[in-house]
């Protein structure tokens, strides 16, 4: 089971955080600090796994962004790497050649995509097509919502 997923930049700026278990703000801040210092301190070309408390930390760098996933100790590290990679693929598909700025400026979209892929610390959908389809469908719904709203606003 996954515990949390963090995205941060090379400068240690948090870009996205997803906690699969509720935690107090203080704990979250401490973990974020620990993760960024630990992961950023890693030398290049070292393995992508770390042990932290009773968790396994799996991280991977894509361009300027670090993806850092914490899983429970019995989980498969390679699967965790695949999860990170799959998420990057989904982002890439959605934004089209995704970059850090896409995630900064559309951070809620990044969450929505994640919510269709993972849920409650487990993989929700392994098929890329289905994830993409449900993201599209809910975006359509949102657009429908918006146009309706404009009508009400302007003519109601």
């Amino acid at each position, binding site marked *: 089971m996954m515990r949390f997923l963090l995205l941060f930049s090379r400068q240690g700026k*948090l870009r996205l955080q997803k906690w699969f278990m509720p935690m107090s703000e203080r704990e979250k801040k401490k973990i974020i600090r620990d993760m960024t210092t630990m992961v950023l301190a890693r030398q290049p070309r070292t393995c992508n796994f770390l042990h932290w408390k009773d968790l396994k930390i799996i991280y991977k760098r894509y361009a300027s962004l670090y993806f850092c996933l914490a899983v429970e100790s*019995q989980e498969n590290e390679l699967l965790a790497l695949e999860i990170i990679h799959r998420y990057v693929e989904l982002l890439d598909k959605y934004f089209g050649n995704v970059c850090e700025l896409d995630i900064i400026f559309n951070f809620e979209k990044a969450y929505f995509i994640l919510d269709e892929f993972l*849920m409650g610390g487990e993989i929700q959908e392994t098929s890329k097509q289905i994830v993409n389809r449900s993201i599209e469908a809910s975006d359509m719904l949102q657009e429908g919502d918006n146009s309706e709203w404009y009508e009400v606003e302007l003519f109601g």
Partner: protein
Amino acid sequence: MALKIVKGSIDRMFDKNLQDLVRGIRNHKEDEAKYISTCIDEIKQELKQDNIAVKANAVCKLTYLQMLGYDVSWAAFNIVEVMSSSKFTYKRIGYLAASQCFHESTDVIMLTTNQIRKDLSSPNQYDTGVALTGLSCFVTPDLARDLANDIMTLMSHTKPYIRKKAVLIMYKVFLKYPESLRPAFPRLKEKLEDPDPGVQSAAVNVICELARRNPKNYLSLAPLFFKLMTSSTNNWVLIKIIKLFGALTPLEPRLGKKLIEPLTNLIHSTSAMSLLYECVNTVIAVLISLSSGMPNHSASIQLCVQKLRILIEDSDQNLKYLGLLAMSKILKTHPKSVQSHKDLILQCLDDKDESIRLRALDLLYGMVSKKNLMEIVKKLMLHVDKAEGTTYRDELLTKIIDICSQSNYQYITNFEWYISILVELTRLEGTRHGHLIASQMLDVAIRVKAIRAFAVAQMATLLDNAHLLTGNMQRNGICEVLYAAAWICGEFSEHLENPIQTLEAMLRPKVATLPGHIQAVYVQNAAKLFATVLKGQEGNTDSTAAQETSQLMIDRLPLFVQSANLEVQERASCILQLVKYIQKLQQKDVEVAEEVSALFAGELNPVAPKAQKKVPVPEGLDLDAWINEPPSESESEDEQPKAIFAKEEPKHSRPRHTEVDEKELARRREARKQEQANNPFYIKASPSSQKVYQDTPGVEHIPVVQIDLSVPLKVPGMPMSDQYVKLEEERRQKERAEKKKKEKKKRKEKRSGRGKKQDSGPESEEDITPAHMVDIVTEEMPENALPSDDDDKDPNDPHKALDIDLDKPLADSEKLPVRSHRAAESLKSPAEDGDVESAAIHAPKKKNGKEKREKKKDKDSDRKKSSKHKKKKQKKEKEEKEKKKKKKHHHHHHHSDGGGEESVQNGTVEDEEPLPPMSNYCLLAENSYIKMVCDIQGNLQDGSQVVVSVIFENKCDSFLKSMEFNVLDSLNSKLQRPEGSGPHDGLTVPFQLPPGVSNEARFVFTVQSIVMPQKLKGTLTFIVKNEDSSTHEKLDFKLHFTCTSYLITTPCYSDAFAKLLESGDLKGSSVRLEGVNMPFHHLLARICFHHHFSVVERIDSCASMYSRSIQGHHVCLLVKTSGQTVSIDAKCDEPTLLGNVLDEIKQTFSQC
């Protein structure tokens, strides 16, 4: 109005949206905090507006700020507002914000229950989805309990999108509300065979997670999983299943035997590294669980080791790391197969990646044997010298010590070598593990008697060269070894060659710069040494030597008497006086040595660290009882004894200003600890990760010691461990030669030439005899210690609660709380209090929104309290019985207590006899293939909808598929069909039924008029598929929409109920039931359950009840009973509906 809206939208154009905020923050890098605080002020303004779009925008921005680390908990209520927007766009933002910001102690969470329930049953699957996703992040025990049933129903939703989310969230619900596991499990299990692969993999995920924590309860699922494993091609799912088997096999070795073959096949065939790795891991787990009697078991091990070797040799660091990790698992049971790869592992010690080096070190730990220990440690010592960075060096140091000391020094054949290794390690600069080395020195010196003379000599040299170790005190933990050295030299001083020299070394002025606890040991052991020295000197004729020694003590000890450290000071002044007295006696020529050494006579035995815990508590001893009763509250402060030497700790002082007493505080602390312990999300410090470091007190007072550079850095006289390696080699060779000689002799005697193999092969473990007659003293345990191995189990594991037997049939008491069962808990609407007589108790009516909000909260927390109460009640049933009887008489005077004690839950008073089980599912149709039962419920959200839940049960031995459900629509009622399908098309049932399986599907009907009951004709068509044939079958049924099914259980407060009756809008009707032979509360419960009523108030044998139709008709009942006659007076604003409902009630009771 229109103008206002237009104005609102123009304002909105000037609001910042999220992109503007992000851009703004990036443009204000130098004064970010200031910029954000103005933004937060703007957001606060936006949140005050009525426009939900503005609010949603504000909440979205807050979510971003929350990520940057700003506190946004103040906006929790606004988040709830946005969550409850009817627009998906805003709802989505609201739920996102909630999932990011809410945690268990967020109090507005309890306001969300109904909103979430509404979203869960929304006709739009994305509303439901977004609610489920959000809930998975912030579900609390209360939410879990209240929503468990709703979520469980969603597991059988027609849309796979909802099903998979519902299945996944169930795990969180189980964690928070373990009672839900058993009722929900059958359905969860069904989902393992869901036609949708996404739902199936979700179910696999959840069950794997459950089974991993409590495997024994899930053994019965093994065949099903085995089938899934052999049929699935989805690697994500396969990995989970294989992991699950890894957890199950230790409990069922037969399962392991079956697994080996498919797993090895997968290992051979798969190209996915993640799957390969998982298979290897599980094969290892299987092999560990199997007894070694398996014939082809070494082949599997070889296969695993081979594959792992390929991983380790890979250039990908990740694979290398994982290979080493898995190797260490094999090592535990099959060390021989791993040991042959020692070269590869030693090679990994040179890897530039530290985590790989650490993994390799872990492996080395298990690979040592008597034969190779010295060699491996020698390699490690080389690495210690090379290592850069203290962390890795410290890690190496601990590993060396771990490796050597493992299983009671099993692999050490030469303790002189080990001591010299320890001494060499003391030369490490800046290590934090001085205490570790020290404890090893002490342990070996105490427990290996044969080595004491050598150890003492080594320690004496260490003490002599102490200035080398203490060279740079500030960052040096290594001086801890002096603690051990001083103690060993003192305790075993009889082995010292030159005790006077050591005594002098221990009394050097520089010693005073050491940390206090070490000085204390120095002083104490100086006294021991003194005793030994005296003993040696008194035998001589010349008594001046003895007197000189005393003088030495008297000269040097005053330095320690002045020590700031209490312990040092105390010991030093004691010993100083003692020596002065001895000196006096010496001057009178009295022989004192005997008596002085008697001070330190006797041997100290090592005691096992767990010994104290193992002492059984004697009978009749209560450890929690007070020895002296704690002082009573009334005692004045003056009576407390005043502290003389030190201030008392603040916790003893009585709090003056607070009213909370000590007990209360202790209780709270305990409660908090409990809560933290029970909270699975509270990261507990594992005992091993926390190491206590001794602080050197008053470092700044210590004068900086100049390093004497004239002394060569290699300490003279210190042994080099290499030297012992060589010696040991020689010794072993000699031994071997001797043995050979002996054997040769034997052979000669026997004249047989077959023994050649023996001496050409490498020596086996047993051949190596230790150099000394090593007697490793075992640690002492109390006489009647209880042997138990469960010392390390964590009693607070949250998953313990989920250790539930799932194969037992469900009891009625275990059913999940359904909405209709949790209705009339508080009897009176709090908002109306002002009108009724109890104005003094409650605050008067308030009008602005904020106050209302608070009230709502109150109400909710009341409900929470009373539901907690319920639980307690069940436990304390007996106690409460009597109380209740007394209170019953006063019942109707007591409304204002907020529905606490005497609230009647739908006619069930706890102390009355239990209800018989009831079900609302009634038989729809049945033939030899299939059975259909159904339940009809009105839809709360939509006044014209009725939801029919049908459970299909396969009764035959064949597979049922392609089920189509169709109903002949009437003018009044129509089956809702997907867009684009004709009015007579059937609905496909979204699942197939394997033999013996049942599953539930829901169908929505639209109805126009609800005042009359009606029947719809329908047909179910399906294909029965056998191995060789398949036939089309059909089953006709009649769907009966009773008027009852249009009613929805709605709680009603007694005052609102009274008003309703008074209003005069309702028309009355009544009915009498004869010969009803059941307790009154059963009667009420039946009406509640079957006809969706809730009890408003019950007084003895009379009760008022309320319900509402989906189109808003009020239905009020007054039920009275006398003997076997029940009379029901009813009122409703729709007389036809009422008549029909009463008829249906009558029918219910005529059936029983």
